[in-house]
């Protein structure tokens, strides 16, 4: 049951992995929405009004009521459109706790090490961050094994909460791999994740909204002034 466009709006910017997350969630639920694109860094009045605490994207507006913070939006979409599409979070409380745990890990621990690679000023610092990022991916590989139970995604047969949390970072992960020549989603070290990454990018809910690596590279160069 798709909501009429206009009832659901998303304030965001195409390069942001955090914005990608609610977009994939809305696609999974078959919800039509208006994408209110802002230039990265530009704070529109609507944005400031809707997210006065952080002044950041993404912000979902459902009947003009704002929801902020990417994974909170994802969980909101799962609840508000519980009767559409597949459940994004599993039904079992323990499984839910595991999915939420890994999403927190991805944002609090893994992604900062990826950012560290990008920001590293020396080869040593870069190598250290890369090691941390890879160690994190090994943990995520184990988590994938446990959560997927042999199926295609962390969520099982279809994209779930952790898939969205991690999948959103794949665009920038590819950029970092290309810019540094480092292999992060390594078929040898993390075979399950390497296959999962391709699968996620090709999933119909993600395909159209995942930014193209070339576009992101260009964008990165402009923003980093390189």
């Amino acid at each position, binding site marked *: 049951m798709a909501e009429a466009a206009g009832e659901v709006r998303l304030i965001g910017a195409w390069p942001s992995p955090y914005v990608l997350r609610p977009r994939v969630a809305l696609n999974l639920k078959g919800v039509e929405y208006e994408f209110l694109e802002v230039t990265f860094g530009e704070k529109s009045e609507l944005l400031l009004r809707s997210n006065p605490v952080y002044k950041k994207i993404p912000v979902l507006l459902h009947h003009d*009521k704002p929801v902020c913070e990417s994974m*909170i939006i994802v969980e*909101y979409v799962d609840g508000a459109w519980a009767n559409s599409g597949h459940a994004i979070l599993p039904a079992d409380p323990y499984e*839910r*706790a595991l999915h*939420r745990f890994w999403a927190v890990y991805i944002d609090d621990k893994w992604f900062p090490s990826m950012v560290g690679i990008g920001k590293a000023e020396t080869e040593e610092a870069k190598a250290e961050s890369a090691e941390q990022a890879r160690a994190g991916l090994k943990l995520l590989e184990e988590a994938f094994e446990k959560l997927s139970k042999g199926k295609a995604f962390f969520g099982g047969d279809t994209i779930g909460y952790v898939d969205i949390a991690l999948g959103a970072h794949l665009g920038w992960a590819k950029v970092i791999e290309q810019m540094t020549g480092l292999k992060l989603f390594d078929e040898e070290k993390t075979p399950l994740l390497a296959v999962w990454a391709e699968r996620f990018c090709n999933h119909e809910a993600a395909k159209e909204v995942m930014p193209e690596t070339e576009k992101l590279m260009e964008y990165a160069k402009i923003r980093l002034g390189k």
Partner: protein
Amino acid sequence: MGEVDTKGVVLLDFWVSPFGQRCRIALAEKGVEYEYREENLLGDKSPLLLESNPVYKKVPVLIHDGKPVCESLLIVQYIDEWWPHRAPLLPADPYARAHARFWADFIDKKVRPPYADASYVLWKLKGEGHSAAKEEFTGILKLLEGELGDKKYFAGDAFGFVDIALVPFVCWFYTYETYAGFSIEELTPKLVAWGKRCMERESVAKTLSDPHKVFEFVGVLKKRFGVE
């Protein structure tokens, strides 16, 4: 997270941890019986802790029939979802739930005890750094008071998720005030009144630490980390 061999409900915790206290309050609200196991965070971590939380090696960890759940707010949500019929901690409406999660997350990001991260500054810095930290902290308290408004609890009439996320820090107010040199009651009287209302609940009164013991503990930490 793997599986460990413990039946029933076990909470690995540390007496003064506000994160552990969130879990204790939630369990008390739900009337769940559990075994409390004290970890000595100033000493060695137990093998059970290391096994149950290999990623962060931190308390609190809730172990339910051998299965560990980590991260205090995730534990509180787990408790709410596993024992849904008594004292619901999150509202039923998805928008209200998102709102509660947002504020609990804000509290998690912005309200920290000194040992939670090495950079937490209020008691470590002097001079300009100290005033900046004080200003930031005041801003956070005011924002929270703004969100509370004139309501009884953060979600309205029912004690819930956001209250649980914040209330353990009420027993740290005395410590914050002494180090920062301000009166939280003067700055955010509604928040202090809310804290007192929460303390009227048995779950909270029995869980929160004595503010003077908290202050003593910070003194111990300061000596240990060589901060003067």
